[in-house]
C-alpha cells in the first residue's frame, strides 16, 4: 500500500464496522448515486461525521471520489457534492460474435467512450481471431490513454459460459465453444494487458447492455431475445442478471418447434440460416425478383439481405420473416407467461434489421400469453445493436470490481490489479501460456 493512501486514523470507527468495510460501503453508495452529500452518507450508513469525512478523504486520495463541486444551498452553506470518479480507470470490452468482432473502451460507470465493430467470421481459426482481437486492443488503448489505466477486460462470446468456480479471478479460458479449448484467450489478455478478465455469453452481455443503456433502464424484470444464427434469451430480475446453475439459462434455441408439419430446434427452424435458406429458395422459385436482383448484384444473399428486403416490403421476404417471428413468438410466449417480464427486447443481427419479425413475435406473444402477463407488457426491437454487448460487458466488469468480496482485496491500494488473488491469477495465466507454447502448434491459421 502506498504511504500516501494509508487511512489516517481520523474518526473513530464504531465497533460494528471496520475502516475497510465502511470505505467499501461509502464508495459503492457514491458510485451508484445512492448518496451525493456527506449528510446523506452519514444518514444512510449510520456513521458519524468524522468517520465519513475520514473515509471520503481516503477515497479522494485514492482518486475514487471527488468533492470539488457544490450542490444547491437550502438555507445554510451549499453542501459539497460527493461524486464517483469514473475515469480513475477504464474497462476494455470486446465481443466475439458469429459474424462480427467488436471492441470498445468504457469508463468505470460502464459508459462507452469509444467502440469499433468489424465483420469477422467465427468459423475462422480461433487463433487468428484472437490475434486480430489483440491487434485491435493494441490499436485502441494508446489512442485513449486519457481514459485512465486499464482496470479490467470484459469479453462477450457467442456461447454459454459456465458459472465460475470459487476462484475470484479467471486465469484460464473457460470452455465455451468447440474448437476453442486450446485457444488461450483469457491467458493471453491477462498476460499482455495485465488486467483481470471476465467472460460472459453474448446473450448475457446484451441483456445487461439493454438494461443499463437501452430501453430497460426503468424496468426490473426484462427478457432479452437474441435472434441471429443462434437464438437465445437473457433474463434480469430485480435488475440482476439471472445466469442459472450452470450459466446456461435461456438457451431457447434448442427448444423444439413445429411449423408446416416439420419439427426441429427453434434456431434451426427460425434462425438466420433458415432465413437465408428460404431467401435463396424464393429466388430459385421466382417468388422474389427483389432478392434475385440482390443475388445477381452481390453474388451472395445473406440473412440480412432478406431481412432488409422484408423491411423494404418484398412479399416473399416478409413471409419468411413472419414465419420466423411466429415460431420465436411461441417460445417467447411460454417464457413470458412463466416469468411475467415488464419488457421484452428483441436484439441480434436479424431482429435489429427489420420490423416484420417484431410484429410477428408481438402478435403471437400477445395472443398466446396469459392476459395478466401482457396487460402492461412492452415488446420492442433493440436500438443498441452490437453496442449492447459492449455496454453489458463493461457492466459485468464494474459489478465484479466493486463487489464487496472482491473490492475488499484492492480498495486500500486503489487499483484492482494489486489484488493478491489477481497477482496469483496472472502468474497462473503466464504458466499456462508457457505450457501451451510447449505443446505442438496447430496448423497455421488463415489470415483474417
Amino acid at each position, binding site marked *: 500500500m502506498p504511504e500516501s493512501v494509508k487511512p489516517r486514523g481520523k474518526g473513530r470507527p464504531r465497533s460494528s464496522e471496520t475502516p475497510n468495510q465502511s470505505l467499501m460501503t461509502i464508495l459503492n453508495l457514491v458510485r451508484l448515486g445512492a448518496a451525493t452529500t456527506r449528510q446523506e452518507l452519514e444518514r444512510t450508513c449510520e456513521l458519524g461525521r468524522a468517520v465519513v469525512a475520514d473515509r471520503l478523504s481516503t477515497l479522494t486520495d485514492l482518486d475514487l471520489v471527488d468533492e470539488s463541486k457544490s450542490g444547491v444551498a437550502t438555507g445554510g452553506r451549499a453542501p459539497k457534492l460527493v461524486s464517483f470518479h469514473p475515469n480513475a480507470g477504464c474497462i476494455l470490452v470486446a465481443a466475439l460474435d458469429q459474424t462480427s468482432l467488436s471492441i470498445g473502451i468504457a469508463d468505470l460507470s460502464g459508459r462507452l467512450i469509444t467502440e469499433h465493430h*468489424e465483420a469477422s467470421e467465427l468459423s475462422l481459426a480461433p487463433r487468428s481471431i484472437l490475434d*486480430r482481437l489483440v491487434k485491435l486492443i493494441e490499436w485502441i488503448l494508446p489512442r485513449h490513454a486519457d481514459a485512465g489505466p486499464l482496470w479490467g477486460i470484459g469479453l462477450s462470446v457467442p456461447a454459454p459460459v459456465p458459472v465460475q468456480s470459487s476462484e475470484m479471478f479467471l486465469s484460464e479460458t473457460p470452455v465455451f465453444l468447440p474448437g476453442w479449448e486450446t485457444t488461450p484467450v483469457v491467458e493471453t489478455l491477462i498476460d499482455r494487458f495485465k488486467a483481470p478478465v471476465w467472460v460472459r455469453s453474448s446473450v448475457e452481455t446484451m441483456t445487461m447492455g439493454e438494461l443499463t443503456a437501452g430501453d430497460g433502464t426503468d424496468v426490473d424484470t426484462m427478457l432479452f431475445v437474441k435472434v441471429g444464427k443462434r437464438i437465445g434469451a437473457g433474463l434480469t430480475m430485480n435488475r440482476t442478471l439471472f445466469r442459472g446453475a450452470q450459466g446456461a439459462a435461456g438457451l431457447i434455441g434448442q427448444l423444439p418447434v413445429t411449423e408446416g408439419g416439420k419439427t426441429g430446434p427453434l434456431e434451426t427452424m427460425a434462425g438466420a440460416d433458415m432465413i437465408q435458406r428460404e431467401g435463396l429458395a424464393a429466388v430459385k422459385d421466382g417468388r422474389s425478383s427483389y432478392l434475385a436482383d440482390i443475388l445477381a448484384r452481390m453474388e451472395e444473399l445473406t440473412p*440480412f439481405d432478406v431481412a432488409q428486403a422484408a*423491411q423494404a416490403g418484398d412479399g416473399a421476404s416478409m413471409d419468411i420473416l413472419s414465419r420466423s417471428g411466429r415460431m420465436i413468438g411461441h417460445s417467447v410466449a411460454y417464457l413470458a407467461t412463466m416469468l411475467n417480464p415488464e419488457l421484452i427486447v428483441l436484439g441480434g443481427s436479424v431482429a435489429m434489421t427489420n420490423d416484420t419479425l417484431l410484429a410477428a413475435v408481438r402478435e403471437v406473444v400477445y395472443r398466446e400469453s396469459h392476459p395478466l402477463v401482457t396487460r402492461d407488457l412492452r415488446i420492442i426491437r433493440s436500438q443498441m445493436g*452490437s453496442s449492447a454487448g459492449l455496454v453489458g460487458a463493461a457492466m459485468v466488469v464494474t459489478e465484479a470490481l466493486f463487489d464487496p468480496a472482491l473490492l475488499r482485496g484492492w480498495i486500500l491500494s486503489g487499483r484492482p490489479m494489486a489484488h493478491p488473488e489477481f497477482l496469483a491469477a496472472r502468474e497462473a495465466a503466464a504458466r499456462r501460456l508457457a505450457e501451451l507454447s510447449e505443446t505442438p502448434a496447430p496448423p497455421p491459421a488463415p489470415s483474417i
Partner: protein
Amino acid sequence: MGSVTPPTTPSQSISGLGPHGERASDPRRLVITASDAAAARDGGYRVAVVLHTLSGNWSEQHLAAIAGTLGDVSISLLEAVDCQFNPDRQIAALDRLIDLRPDAIISLPVENTAVAAAHRRVAEAGIKLLLLDNAPTGLLPGKDYVSLVSADNFGLGRTGAELLAPHLPQNASVGVLTYGVDFFATNQREIAFSKWMGGQRPDVTLKTAAFPAPHLAGGTAESFLSTTPDLDGLFVVWDEPAVQVLETMERLGVSMPVTTVDLGEKMVPRLADGTVLKGVAAQNPYSQGLAMAQVAILALLGRQTPAWIALPGLPITSSSILGGYQSVWRAPAPAEIVEMTAR
C-alpha cells in the same frame, strides 16, 4: 418529382459495419414516390445543415445534392453552418438552431464525445436528427437520431492499401498519417488500411503519426518524416490534410508513393500526374448528399428509415482519373487534366 433514384454506382459490397455494428443499407432502396413528394410539398418542412466545414469539394457536393433534392419537394434549407472542425462552434450552432425549431437537422458531428450531449438535445427537442459520416458515442439510431449516412469508410481504407501496395518494395516501411480525434470515418479507414496490409502484405511495417487538426497535418508530417526517414510509402486518411503532407514532402525534397481518400480539387492534378500520388479511394459526395436528403424526406414523412446507409467508394488512379473525376464531381474533367492524361 415522381421518384428520385440515386445514380447507379458500381456493384460493390460494403465491407464495414456501422457505428453500432449495423449492416449497411443500400441507398438504392431509398425511394421517394410521387405521393411522398406531394406529401413533402404539403408539409412546409424546414431543415438546417451543420457541417464540419463548408469549404472544399466534398462539402460543396453534399450541400448541392441536399439543397437540390430538398428543393425539389419544396423543403426549405434554413441555414448551412460551418463548424470549422470546432466542437464548441458545433455545440453553439446546434443550441441556436434548436431555438429556431426546424423540423430536421442534418449534422456531421466533428468528434465523438464533446458534441454528444448537444446532438442529444436536438432529438429531445423533438427535432429529427440525421447524421452524416459520424455518430457520437452513446447516441443510438431510432432513439437519439434517425439515420446515419456515410461512405463505406472501412472499404475506403482497404482501397487505400490496395492502391499503395503495388508501389511498395518488399519489407517496406509505410507511414499512416491519421487523425488524432476519435472519429468514426477516419478510425475505420485507418483500421482497414492496417488490417489489409497485415493480411496481404505481412512484410510491410506500419508506423503511425496523428495530426491533431487538418490544418496541422503539414507540421505533423514534417516531424514524422524527420523521425522516420526510412519510409517507403504513405497513407493519409483524407485529402485535405494530404495536400499539406504532399506540399511538405515537396518542400523537404522527399518522394515516395502516397495514397489517400477523396478526390478534392487539389488532388486532381497530382493524381493525373501520378508521380507521387498513386491512387485515391474516392467517396461520391453528391450521391451521399442525395441519399441524405432522401432519408430526411422519408423521416419527415414519418417513414421507417435504415439505421445506417452506406455508399461504396471508388478506386481512382491516373489511368482512371477522367471517369473518376466525372463520377465524383458530376462534371467533365478540366481541360488541363484531359491533356495530362493524353500525354
